[in-house]
């Protein structure tokens, strides 16, 4: 899967995420699917705008593997 070139997939050697606009709810959402685990997350417009404005430092904090995904809790 590495490299993930193709419509609607953002991929590289570390992760592959399918991206599409979902229209089944009351307004469009971004549907993100981690193709390696099948986990799905929806992001609405306000959440996406927030991501756009996220400072680099905050994003790096989220990338810490122990922050949320493998917290060990």
């Amino acid at each position: 899967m590495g490299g993930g070139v193709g419509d609607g997939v953002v991929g590289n050697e570390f992760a592959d995420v399918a991206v599409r606009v979902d229209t089944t709810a009351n307004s469009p959402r971004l549907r993100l699917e981690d193709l390696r685990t099948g986990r799905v997350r929806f992001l609405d417009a306000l959440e996406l705008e927030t991501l756009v404005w996220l400072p680099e430092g905050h994003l790096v904090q989220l990338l810490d593997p122990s922050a949320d995904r493998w917290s060990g809790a």
Partner: protein
Amino acid sequence: MTHADTRARYDELVQPERVHGSLYTSPEVFADELARIWYSTWVYVGHVSEVAKPNDYVRKAIGPQDVIMSRSADGEVHLLLNRCAHRGNLVCEAAAGNSSSFRCAYHGWTYRNSGELVGYPFHQGYGGRGKLDLGLGRVPRVAVHQGFVFGSFAPDGPSLAEHLGDAAGEIDRLVRLSPEGEIELTAGWLQHRARANWKLLAENETDGYHPQFVHASIFSVAESGIGALYGEKSSAVTRAFGHGHSENDLRPEFRRLGAPLGWFGTTEERMPGYVAAMRAAHGEAAQEILVEGAPHVMIFPNLFIAEIQMFTIQPLAHDVTVQHVTAVQLKGAPEMNRRMLQQCVGSVGPAGLLLADDTEMYERNQVGLGELRPEWVDVRRGSHREHVDERGHTVGGATDETAMRGFWAHYRELMTR
């Protein structure tokens, strides 16, 4: 005027067989009704199918109150007031959408879709982040029956089950017409504004005396047998359930005819997929369900289920009411749904005949009720031939004003409390 004074006044204005015309025309009465009925009792707000996905929301109303019905990510349905806790601006402008949060357009205050304040820009002005304990207003009590979401501004009082009483069984009757046991209100809503008092609409919904006159033209054009259901020789009945709820129970006529889907003006042969799905889902009970059909029930104060379509009554002033209409959709019944949608548009759509007929009557009534004499409105029809059924509900003939008397008895109770 003190509360005791107005209590005595309503005691006088609502009598067993007549009500005073000023109840429909007075702005002061309307203000009292908002406080004692709309902001006190259970009011129907929306259906869970309208917020099917996590973070879906729709704008609804309880009378003039602008209510956001939202579903948070954990699946819970919330009824929030559409008012920023800062300066009162609307936090939500669209009729529907999907968002985990609402952001006020005025100063950027942001709330979760469950009502909690997330934050506010330039927080130093409030002494720092997280210093304010302000959230969106909420309807204090929310309860759901068969996907129908009701709200009550009264923090205490009867439960929804107590409020609905046996009228809940009529909602159950509608839902069991779905092979999957669920209805969906996903067909979209029409809104009709009438220059009339809300009670004229509520009273009319189960008034079996008017159809043969007001709807004569559509019955004639459509060669419909519905008119005959509302006649002196009909075995149908009008039933007052208590708490202001009522129904036109047409089942005696449909049972007499004994034809599955006769209530819907069609036959088993024309709906083979639906009938097969119903028989698979319900077994032998399907025959009775298909013969008896859907309810025709008015749930006090604002929910009217008229077999294939659903109305909500929204009062905005003593003489302005909006009627919201949608076609009922039965989950797992595409054949029926297509037809229900077509019939709904034909009868109560923008060019529909039934609702136009009724609205003309509401507005004529409102004008007439403004006349000074005679002062009273008569609701005595059939009171001499009522009886009480085995469940303790008052039952009258198909054309009798039993439902209106039930409505007014409950109204009086609420207004004199």
